[in-house]
């Protein structure tokens, strides 16, 4: 990094002042004249149908309520089109259009939309919608489906499907095999064997911004202000549901108040809001309630995982098996890919991974921060801790012994990999060498103390993206892409990348996101925005610079006329001659006097490709080390100290990168100790609250990054950073709880009843 470079500098967020003054605009903040308010009415049963008599009566009551303009229900909803299988086979987009008939496939399914002049009137109208149902038996868990009489996959030609199935690979990535096998058919008979069953509960993304949509028609043109993190996908999906041309829809997602995997794959309320606006001829605003967010905007599905490890006398893995049973709804496909990283994280000649998905009468799940890795590494990394214990080895030494220096799944080398350095540096910073092997060895202030660690990993991904460049006469250059600022810092990082690639100062560059009028970009997920949109911005800024230099060497009045292109450059906002002593010229003065032809020449749209399909494999790694205190008298585990060392390629902005990793660890802390959507097992009704980490729950953090650069994935060396923070975190905490208490816990979250001493038997000496 030189003094001029913006990449690598810990600059503040470019939209920071807006966010601290209340000026920042999110979808629901959009003020439209004469907007109407919509409130959703949802099913209270898990399977069956609403009776038409009760629905007709409810609609009549609501329509007669003060201020109610319209009640949209299966009785009057214009038919919405079905999505093609190409959209629904690999992404959690629902096959069944909303309000298409009276049947109910899950609790919280939309049954009506009440539209009124004010929010209060819409809420009152919706409260009058008491409905009666003809109930059918509901299958609420994967085990019920698997063990039931209709266990086999069925209904593949219908919208509503049942049974279990085994998808071949993850999304559109055939090499990410969900059913995979390497080495001998049978598990070796010799060696130390660990075999454990793990469960993870349903988790909610719980972004603090509620899913919010405002739909407004102007003739045949529809504008949707929406809290989405996939503008391009939503536009295509919505156009299909509504049966209108894609280019008649504009999607605006100004800023997004957190997503973590939700707010994408277009949830049904968006289509209903647009339909209600078309029916009433006026703009409609629909904000999904916090309760409805649990059933209507996705969640991380439950998993049951079986993991078996076998190691030889030298502690080398000889076999690794990871089998996942998970759930999706009867109306959409999703598979939590828990076993993907088991295929390559540790060297093992034998590997078996499988995923089985059961269709249950519950809402549609979707990606959530660290999809696959968060629950999968919980199982794998706890099992590794068990194996270390069985071998009487330090857990870190076991991992180093089984370090994989290349990607075993593909047989290709890593592009830029520093896992051993993460282990060593993290261990030093934490003081891991002082860890006593025996559990229940450390105490402080009357409570037990334990230390745990886990490996983190997440793929480096990159999809195609576009970027528009607009050069203004005032000397600023604006870059734009239909990506999304969900809090990851994309606008800041893109500004830094653009500034360096164009040779301009940060203050002369701006980046805009959140509008389908900008060139298309992929969904903001899979930790790929910096690599994907960053590549589009990098290439566009490089092309902009080339065009400026081309101009100055061909313009006869320029001091650089007839210079060789390679002898001039733009650095820190100055046009400079590399060889000669020619004085530099500010780009700003060139632009201030530029004619419209030059400004037009410097205003253009370009794009970048997806990740290269061959060559080395881009994969991020990291190591987590943590300390917990466990008070067995009240059953409380507190995480007190955290050291994480991450290997994510080049870091664009260390301040924002640290925040991202802290956020990921905090997300994982919630998953480990608090978070579960609790249901009554008989009825599927939600019970109680969803607990999240607060200010009072987080440890002291020590976050650092190894000095890597992944030139294979991106020209500027970055990979991505959004997901890796959470990966391995629940395992590190569970391992620390084991070290503190001697209790090996296999089910998340770890709550008070798992840790209380008066009710549990005194922990056994695990090594005896």
């Amino acid at each position, binding site marked *: 990094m030189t003094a001029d470079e913006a990449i690598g500098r810990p600059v503040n967020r470019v939209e920071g002042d807006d*966010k601290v003054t209340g000026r920042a605009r999110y979808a629901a*903040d959009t003020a439209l004249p004469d907007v109407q308010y919509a409130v959703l009415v949802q099913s209270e049963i898990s399977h069956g149908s609403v009776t038409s008599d009760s629905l007709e009566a409810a609609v009549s009551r609501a329509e007669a309520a003060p201020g109610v303009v319209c009640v949209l229900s299966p009785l009057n909803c214009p038919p919405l089109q079905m999505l093609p299988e190409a959209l629904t086979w690999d992404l959690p987009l629902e096959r069944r259009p909303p309000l298409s008939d009276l049947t109910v496939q899950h609790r919280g399914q939309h049954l009506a939309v009440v539209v009124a002049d004010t929010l209060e009137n819409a809420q009152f109208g919706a409260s009058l919608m008491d409905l009666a149902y003809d109930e059918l038996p509901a299958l609420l868990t994967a085990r019920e489906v698997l063990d039931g009489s209709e266990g086999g996959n069925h209904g593949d030609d219908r919208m509503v499907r049942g049974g279990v199935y085994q998808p071949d690979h993850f999304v559109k990535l055939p090499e990410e095999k969900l059913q995979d096998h390497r080495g001998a058919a049978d598990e070796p008979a010799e060696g130390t064997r660990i075999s454990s069953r793990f469960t993870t509960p349903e988790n909610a993304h719980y972004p*603090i911004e509620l899913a919010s949509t405002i739909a407004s028609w102007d003739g045949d043109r529809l504008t949707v202000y929406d809290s989405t993190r996939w503008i391009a996908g939503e536009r295509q999906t919505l156009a299909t549901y509504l049966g209108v041309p894609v280019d008649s829809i504009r999607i605006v997602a100004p800023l997004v108040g957190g997503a973590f995997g939700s707010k994408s794959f277009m949830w049904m309320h968006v289509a209903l809001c647009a339909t209600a606006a078309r029916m009433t001829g006026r703009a409609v605003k629909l904000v999904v309630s916090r309760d409805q967010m649990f059933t209507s905007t996705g969640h991380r599905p439950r998993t049951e995982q079986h993991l078996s490890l076998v190691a030889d006398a030298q502690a080398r893995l000889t076999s690794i098996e990871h089998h996942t049973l998970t759930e999706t709804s009867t109306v959409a496909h999703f598979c939590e890919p828990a076993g993907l990283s088991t295929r390559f994280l540790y060297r093992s000649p034998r590997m078996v991974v499988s995923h089985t998905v059961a269709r249950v009468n519950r809402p549609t799940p979707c990606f959530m921060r660290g999809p696959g890795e968060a629950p999968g590494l919980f199982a794998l990394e706890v099992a590794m801790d068990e194996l270390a214990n069985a071998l009487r080895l330090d857990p870190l030494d076991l991992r180093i012994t089984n370090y994989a220096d290349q990607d075993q799944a593909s047989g290709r080398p890593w592009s830029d990999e520093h896992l051993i350095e993460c282990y060593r540096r993290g261990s030093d910073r934490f003081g891991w060498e002082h860890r006593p092997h025996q559990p229940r060895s450390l105490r402080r202030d009357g409570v037990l103390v334990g230390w745990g660690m886990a490996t983190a990993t997440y793929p480096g991904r990159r999809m195609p993206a576009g970027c528009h460049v607009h050069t203004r006469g005032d000397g600023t250059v604006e870059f734009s892409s239909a990506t999304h600022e969900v809090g990851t810092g994309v606008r800041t990082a893109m500004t830094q990348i653009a500034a360096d690639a164009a040779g301009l100062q940060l203050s002369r560059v701006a980046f805009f996101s959140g509008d389908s009028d900008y060139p298309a970009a992929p969904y903001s997920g899979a930790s790929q925005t910096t690599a994907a949109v960053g590549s589009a911005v990098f290439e566009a800024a490089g092309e902009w610079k080339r065009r400026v230099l081309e101009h100055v060497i061909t313009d006869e009045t320029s001091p650089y006329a007839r210079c060789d292109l390679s002898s001039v450059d733009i650095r820190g906002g100055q046009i400079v001659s590399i060889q000669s002593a020619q004085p530099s010229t500010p780009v700003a003065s060139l632009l201030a006097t530029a004619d419209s032809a030059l400004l037009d020449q410097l205003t253009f749209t370009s794009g970048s490709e997806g990740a290269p399909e061959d060559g080395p494999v881009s994969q991020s790694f990291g190591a987590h080390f943590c300390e917990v205190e466990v008070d067995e008298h009240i059953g409380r585990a507190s995480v007190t100290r955290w050291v994480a060392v991450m290997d994510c390629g080049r870091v664009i902005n260390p301040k924002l990168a640290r925040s991202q990793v802290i956020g*990921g660890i905090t997300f994982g802390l919630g998953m480990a100790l608090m978070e579960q959507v609790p249901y009554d097992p008989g009825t599927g009704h939600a019970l109680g*609250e969803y607990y999240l980490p*607060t200010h009072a729950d*987080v440890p002291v953090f020590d976050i650092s990054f190894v000095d890597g650069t992944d030139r294979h994935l991106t020209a500027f060396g970055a990979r991505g950073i959004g997901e890796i923070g959470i990966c391995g975190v629940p395992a590190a905490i569970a391992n620390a709880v084991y070290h503190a208490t001697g209790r090996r816990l296999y089910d998340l979250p770890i709550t008070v009843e798992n840790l209380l001493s008066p009710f549990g038997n005194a922990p056994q000496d695990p090594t005896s």
Partner: protein
Amino acid sequence: MTAGSHPEHTVELSINGVPVAVQTDVRSTLLDLLRERLQLTGTKKGCDHGLCGACTVNVNGRRVVSCLTLAVSIDGATVLTIEGLADGEQLHPLQQAFVDHDGFQCGYCTPGQISSAHALLGEHARGDLSAASFDGPYTDLARGPETLSTNEIRERMAGNICRCGAYPNIVEAIASCLPECGR
């Protein structure tokens, strides 16, 4: 209830120093009044149940969750929202500290966090105690702690949830303001 008969009431408030008289549905919360009637959209709706703290504003010098505050119940009150903290273009020191310490990511809980922190500084100056004060020296219990430890700030901010997990940065931002903003 028949069409048009839902009761309305006029409330008079001082909002960010500006007197406002506004007709409101008696069912309306202060949050919906601010956002939907007065277009003061800086205050955010995160749960509408008093759980998350995103809608925190100051009413008569005390922090409240505006989603659980009926607008008609505070007739005559002085309300301070996130839009009223800065002095023109000059950010309040707390606002600047949140920017400098990266005390937010998505920014959606931020107005509530800053409004809470702003009230926290006043509560500290007044000598108010928190549960964490009982972990300190007993002399703190008479007049309130002289300074606020990290644990004090964490405890006093625990009602504001940040799902992005900016907590340590928020605490640093608030701590950096204590010498000049506290008592």
